[in-house]
Each structure stands twice: as C-alpha cells, then as structure tokens.
C-alpha cells in the first residue's frame, strides 16, 4: 500500500519542491500551509509520516506536534521537523520531548529529505538521517 506523506510549510516554493521530489518517488503526498490545515488533514486521513516546518501562521510546528502527541490516534505518528532557525531551539530537548525523529535545518536537500523519510519507513532510526 502506498505510504502517505503529509508536508506542511507556509513557504510555498519549498513545499512544492519537496512535494515534487517525494511524489516522484511514488509516495502519496498531501500538503498543508499551516498547522491548523495539517491538523484537519491528519484527523480526516492519518498519514504515515508528517514533515512540518517550525514557524508557520495560525498553528506552528511545535504546537502541531504537541497536539498530535496528546491525541491517541496520532501519539506515535513519526514526525520530521524543518526549521530555518536554531537559536531558540534546543534540538535534543525538543526532539526528545515531542518524540520528533529528526530536526532538519533549512536550507535542506529534497534528496536527503526523501532518504530520511525512507529510513523512517524502513524503521532504521539508527541510520544517519538527512543533514
């Protein structure tokens, strides 16, 4: 069965580039432009992985993941988080607290993002994920 990937970013060019790459790899890709949109899509049709930006209008990435972790059906949903900032985030703490599989710094490589998603699907968390 085709795995479902949900991409969430308010920067449309970045969202489209990632969507293009992952869709071409054969995955079912959905997109959302903020946390609230993503939450509605997740409730309607749970994806197999969420790739979300950190800074977004309405509901940001951290808020979205906190909401996921408080909900039974999404508590264990694998999450990758993209961020252009780094100063206000302590990556290890955040990843541990919210069970985020990987924080990916912008600018990122769509190729590495795809490899990271595939690693998560193959349940190989020990593999060095995208830089």
């Amino acid at each position, binding site marked *: 069965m085709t795995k479902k990937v949900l991409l969430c970013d308010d920067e449309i060019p970045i969202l489209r580039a990632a969507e293009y790459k992952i869709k071409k790899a054969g995955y079912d890709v959905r997109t959302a432009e903020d946390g609230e949109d993503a939450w509605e899509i997740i409730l309607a049709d749970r994806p197999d992985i969420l790739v979300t930006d950190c800074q977004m209008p309405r509901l940001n990435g951290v808020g979205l993941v906190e909401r996921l972790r408080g909900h039974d059906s999404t508590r264990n949903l694998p999450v990758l988080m993209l961020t252009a*900032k780094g100063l206000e985030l302590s990556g290890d703490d955040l990843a541990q607290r919210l069970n985020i599989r990987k924080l990916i710094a912008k600018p990122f490589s769509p190729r590495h993002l795809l490899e990271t998603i595939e690693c998560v699907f193959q349940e190989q968390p020990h593999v060095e994920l995208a830089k």
Partner: protein
Amino acid sequence: MNRARDYNPSAVLALVFSGGLVLASGAGFLVDHRSWLVRLGSLLIGLAIAALITWAWMWPIQKQMKVAHRYLDRLTRISPSELQTDTFDTQLPSLPVNHPLRDVADRLTVLLIEVCEKVQELEHVRNAADIHCRRASDERDRIKAILHGIEEPILAIDQFDELILANPSAEALLNFDATSTENRMLHELVKCEHLVNLLTTTCHRKNTQNCGDEIEITDESGERAWYRVTARRLVADTSGSSESDAESTGAVAVLRDIAETKALQHRNAEFVSSVSHEMKTPLAGIKAYVELLADGEAEDEQTREEFLEVISSQADRLQRLVENLLNLARMEAGVVKVDKTPRPLNEILEEAINIVRPSAEAKQITLIADLSPMYLGLLADRDMLLQAAINLLSNAIKYTPEGGQITLRSRMLDKDVRFEVEDTGVGLSEDDADHVFEKFYRVKKNRDMAPGTGLGLPLAKHIIEDVHGGTLTLQSALGRGSTFAVTIPGSGQMA
C-alpha cells in the same frame, strides 16, 4: 663660697643659741658663787648676749632666704615663651653673686628652660598628631560619602573573610544590614554563594590580577538581575616586594549591573536569528530547485522553466533582503551621510508616485495623488525621504487587492507638513499593527500576497523619525484598509 651657710638654718640657730647659753652660765658662776641673784643676772645677761649674737648671725641668712624665695617665685611665673628669650633674666630679682642659693637657682633656671623646650616640642608633636587625626577623619568621611554615593554595589572583606565595608547599594541588593549585627562573617551575611566564593577565593589567592565573573543575583523582591563582579585582592604594603609576595589583607568586589548588556546581547541574538531565518528561507528554495534540476527531476521543458523561475524569484528575494538590511544597518550606524536641504514635499511625493505607478497599474489599483496646492517646505534628505515614501506606497500596493484604491495626500499643519498613504487593502489586526514596524515582522496570513523582507516599514520609520525628527503612525482596520501618516517639522522656506 662659704659652705657653712649652706647648712640648715634651724641647726645653725640652735648651735649658736646653745653656745651663748653656756657662755652666760659660765660668766655667772665665775662672778660670785654665793650670790644667787648675781648668778641669775649673769645668766640672763649671758642669755641676752647669746640671743643677740644668734639674731646677728641669722638676720642676713633670713634676708638671703627671702631674696631666694622671691627669685624662685618670679622664676616659676615666667611663661615658657618668655623663657625662650635672651632677656628673660631682666624680669627676675637680682640674686647676688655670692648668694648661697645662686648655684641652685642657676641650675633650676637651666632645667626649667629645658623642660619648657621639651613641653613646647611635645606641644608641636601633639598639634601635628591632631592635624593628622583631623585629616584622617576628613578623609574617612570623604571616602564614606563617595562610597555611599556610588550606585554600584561595593563590598570588602578582611583576610578572615569578615565584612569590613559595604555601601548602601550592596546592602540593598544583597539584603543585609551590616550595622545591625555583630556577626561579620561574609558567608552568613550574604546569601549569594557565587559572590561569597569569588570574594574569598580572590582574598586567598596569590595572583594579584582582577577576578571577574557574571553572576545572577535575586534581590529582596525576588527579581533576578545579572551583575558583572570584579574582585581584587587587597595587600597591606607592596613597597620593596612584588604584590604577589605581599600578605593579603582582604579583597574588594565591585558589582556592575549588566541587565542592559544582557538585553542587548539577547536582542542581537534575536536579530541574528531573524536574519538567519529570513536568509535561509529563499536559500532553501534555491537549493531545493537547483538540486531537482541537477538530479534531472524536471520531466519536461515547462517544468524546468518553472523551476528556474522559482530560483530566480528566490534569488531576487535574497537580494532585496540583503540590500534592505544593509540600508537599515548603514542608517542605524550613522555611516550614511545625511544631506538635509530645504525641499518641497510635493516634489518628492510626485517622484515617488511616478516610481510605483507601474506596480499599481499591474494590479489595476487606482493611485490618487491628493497633494496640497500650498508650498510644503521641509528640511529633508531627498533620497532618504523618497525611499521612505516609496516604501510606504509599495507596502500599500502589496497588500491592496486588485481593483483597490490608494490615496497619497499631503497637507500643511501649523508648523509641520504631513503626508498620508491611505489604502483600501486587507488592513491589520490590532496585534499586527503593534508589531508592523519591527524588523522582519510580516503578517503571517498576508505573506502570500507579495514577497517581502519585513524591513521596508522599519526603514521608513527610521528615515522619518530618526533622520527627519518626524513621526510615522498607523491607523488600520482589519479588512477595511490602512493609513500610514507622516508628520515632519516644516521649514517654511522656498527651495
């Protein structure tokens, strides 16, 4: 001299009287031993003769004694200052050269002069000591006043870690009253362990260099503040030996409030973080699409061209960001030369409106120039004010939907000139309006309406308020549009 005259006068008197008595008795017995009357008369005559001889002997002695008494009495009444003069002896009664007490009087006079000299010497020493004491007391009062006047908390300890000095700022910050307790141990008065350790370590170390550290102190009200502490070892005397060899007598610490420095560091960090975020976003787009092209992901020519267009627009965005950032930094640093000359405001506004007109027309936005017919003179840096007007007009065009209307209005006030940019755009919420002049702030929900860096409005505000001494205010209603109003002092002069 006659040494017999040095004897005790009473003994001499008794001796002479006894001799006279013996002579008288002997004469009485020799005259007639059977007549008792004759014998008695002879005895009386002998006694009279003895008394006469005694009186004759003693009278000059008593006279000399009186002279000596007068001499000594006068001598003791002469003041020490008179004793220092060469003519002091003219004030004394004359004492004959052969007077039996002349030697004694001379020695006494010399002794008295020496005593007076010593007394005067001691007087000088005492006066000098008094002056030193007064100076030391004044110095202490002055230092105390200076210490009390210094806002920075200062405290010092001795080599036994006991507090020896604390100014009121230190007492207030560290919440203790040094005068109200006998216990002067620093660690019992001051609860801030970090500060106590720094002071005691400084006191007992050999190194004489200043010790410094940043410490966080919680004051009485529970508020926490950062202080930069500089501590130095005190040494008694370094003459003849290096400071490191000298024995430590304590340590002193000065605390400097670095709340502003910390806030500045935080603001700088936030600014760098914001710049980093704003730059990484277009970079992320460029990198992603370059990689897609390099990997041959574009299936057809149209897709390839779409990717290249995105790369180009993201590169433009990055360029705009860098230019705006540099302009703002230059202005804030004052490295941009401000060249203010008397200018007509309308001329600048007309130029600005001509520059932005193509953008407005592309969105079918009606651009109205409602400029005052009066001469609105002001002292302005033409290029900068033009930039501010363009930024305000461009902002209005970006956030006004197609078919909307923008009015540029100018008016003369009492002493000021004013222009407004009013649009029928999306407007701002109260919260967004409060932040819209902050660097990099962009209204989230309007981001897709137009590319932007979040620097145009802060730049305009800086030009108007800091460079031209005016004000830039905003009135906005969500969904109904915004009005940015600029007021600048007028010059009234014709250009």
